[in-house]
């Protein structure tokens, strides 16, 4: 027999109490685990998403860009446009590396109640979408070509060379994209010249995508662009992501606070349970002192007991969190103001280590006071106590 087995045997004397205490630690740790795992996953996914976006600055007409986007998705028309000649001005701004004209329109089939979204682009856009791969075919071959996303190809049963009608004209599928995992999967891409013509907006654009030479100067470049024309909005992606991250971090602070409180409550619970068991065992501890245990021995024994409870709780909690991660992910996604696609809970070894470490630290701290109290029991008083 050694210290650890004695500590375990002591804990097993009150099985229900010990189990409940371990469970309370496990719950707190599983919440912590999910949060840490979620944080890592979330940041990873956000970064990925921004990278896929491909552009650093988006120039749109004045007015709320979100409103415009929602108009398109629900089949309305853009209220305002950019003039095509602005693109040349933007190119001239120092630090701008690439530009791409973007046009967007939609057509709603009132019978099928579905909206097709058409994106007008030219070859410049390919330099932004470096991640794009063609599953079949390639880019536009003439001014009545259409490139479609994988989702479109699958749902509309469109194959290479098939014709599809848009705005009263026939377009031939010249390329099908591989899955991108974002909105591109559901879009039709048309040559921008044709697209603006069939929409009756020749010489107009919905947006201009811009890549800069040096990301660290993105704000200065955005400023220069703003100065160039007055009727456009220059949105740097840093601002967008900054805003999203800001929203997220305020939510996160709230969640952290909840987790911290959960951990604190369970730590106090552990402390209380162990302290109670110390008081119950006053006489027994007195006897141990009489048979030669030192203050330190008693301290260690009680400390180990706390430690074992918390460590077990940490392991059980991590296990629970891994087992329930998909449910927890759904729950957290609901809480978040903006959630990227992809798997948000990324439970790697580091997360497990962090969680278990937290439980261990909690055990170490919660054990100090009861262990101190126990080690300070005077043997005669302890033995006398009836």
């Amino acid at each position: 027999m050694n210290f650890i087995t004695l500590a375990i045997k002591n804990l097993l004397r009150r099985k229900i109490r010990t189990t409940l205490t371990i469970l309370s630690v496990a719950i707190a740790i599983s919440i912590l685990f999910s949060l840490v795992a979620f944080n890592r996953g979330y940041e990873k996914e956000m970064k990925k998403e921004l990278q896929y976006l491909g552009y650093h600055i988006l120039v749109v007409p004045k007015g709320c860009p979100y409103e415009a986007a929602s108009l398109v998705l629900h089949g309305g028309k853009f209220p305002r446009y950019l003039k095509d000649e602005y693109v040349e001005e933007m190119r001239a701004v120092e630090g701008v590396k690439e530009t791409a004209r973007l046009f967007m329109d939609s057509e709603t089939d009132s019978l099928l109640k579905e909206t097709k979204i058409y994106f007008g682009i030219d070859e410049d856009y390919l330099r932004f979408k470096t991640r794009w791969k063609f599953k079949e075919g390639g880019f536009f071959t003439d001014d009545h070509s259409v490139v479609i996303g994988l989702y479109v190809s699958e749902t509309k049963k469109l194959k290479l060379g098939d014709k599809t009608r848009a705005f009263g004209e026939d377009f031939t599928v010249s390329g099908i994209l591989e899955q991108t995992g974002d909105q591109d999967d559901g879009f039709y891409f048309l040559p921008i010249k044709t697209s603006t013509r069939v929409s009756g907006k020749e010489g107009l654009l919905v947006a201009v995508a811009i890549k800069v030479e040096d990301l660290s100067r993105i704000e200065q470049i955005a400023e220069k662009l703003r100065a160039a024309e007055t009727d456009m909005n220059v949105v740097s992606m840093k601002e967008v992501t900054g805003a999203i991250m800001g929203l997220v971090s305020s939510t996160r602070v709230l969640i952290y606070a909840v987790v911290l409180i959960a951990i604190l409550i369970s730590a106090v619970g552990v402390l209380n349970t162990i302290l109670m068991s110390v008081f119950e065992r006053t006489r027994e501890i007195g006897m141990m002192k009489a048979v030669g245990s030192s203050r330190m021995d008693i301290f260690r024994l009680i400390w180990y007991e706390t430690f074992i409870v918390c460590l077990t709780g940490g392991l059980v909690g991590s296990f629970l969190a891994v087992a329930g991660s998909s449910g927890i992910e759904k729950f957290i996604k609901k809480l978040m103001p903006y959630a990227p696609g992809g798997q948000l809970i990324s439970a790697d070894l580091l997360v497990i280590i962090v969680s278990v470490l937290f439980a261990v630290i909690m055990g170490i701290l919660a054990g100090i006071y009861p262990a101190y109290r126990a080690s300070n029991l005077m043997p005669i008083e302890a033995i006398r106590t009836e």
Partner: protein
Amino acid sequence: MTKELFTLEGITRIYKRGNEEIKGVDGLTLKIDKGEYISILGPSGAGKTTFLNMLGCIDSPTSGKLIFYPDNGEMIELTRMKENKLDEFRRENIGFVFADFFLLHSLTATENVELPLIFSSGKKVEDGYSKKVLEMVGLGHRLTHKPLQLSGGEMQRVAVARSMVNQPKVLLADEPTANLDTGNSEVIFNLFEELNSMGMTVVVATHAEELAKRARRIIFLQDGKIVEDKGGK
């Protein structure tokens, strides 16, 4: 080699209860030799427990001097020792037995006996030593029993075995048979005799006068003072 084990000089223990001062023991002066077998008798409240607690260093006197003579010929003034040293002293030299057996119910007889060994710097003893000690107290057939599966007499014998496992110099027993019937009390005192014949110094506080008379030396206490000390050399 000295034959003395303990020297007590004016050992007094004052308990304070509010303004009232109670002398648990009052100016005890005596010597205890190695290998003695002593009974402490006296009415309730006479100071028997206090006396044993002083010897066993689980309580320290308010005044007076307590000296211990280990085998190496030195003398140790216990009344001037630090707490952690006293823990060590107790672990190495003292075996305690109480009226209540103080066994851990979750442990088997063997594990209960092993308990003092797991504490830090506990004496290194050969494997299976606790089993041997249990055999010596006549419980070789009860090694894996839990305390609640044992009779009172057997429980006390486990407690005696536990007090012996550290191979102490002195066995201090405070009313060891208070919770036992006559038969079992006999067994325990036989055990003490046996231990004493093997060289162990035994000091027993008891109300059982008949059994106390088996000791070679009998000390009567009253109001914390020695009123009679007979049979010693």
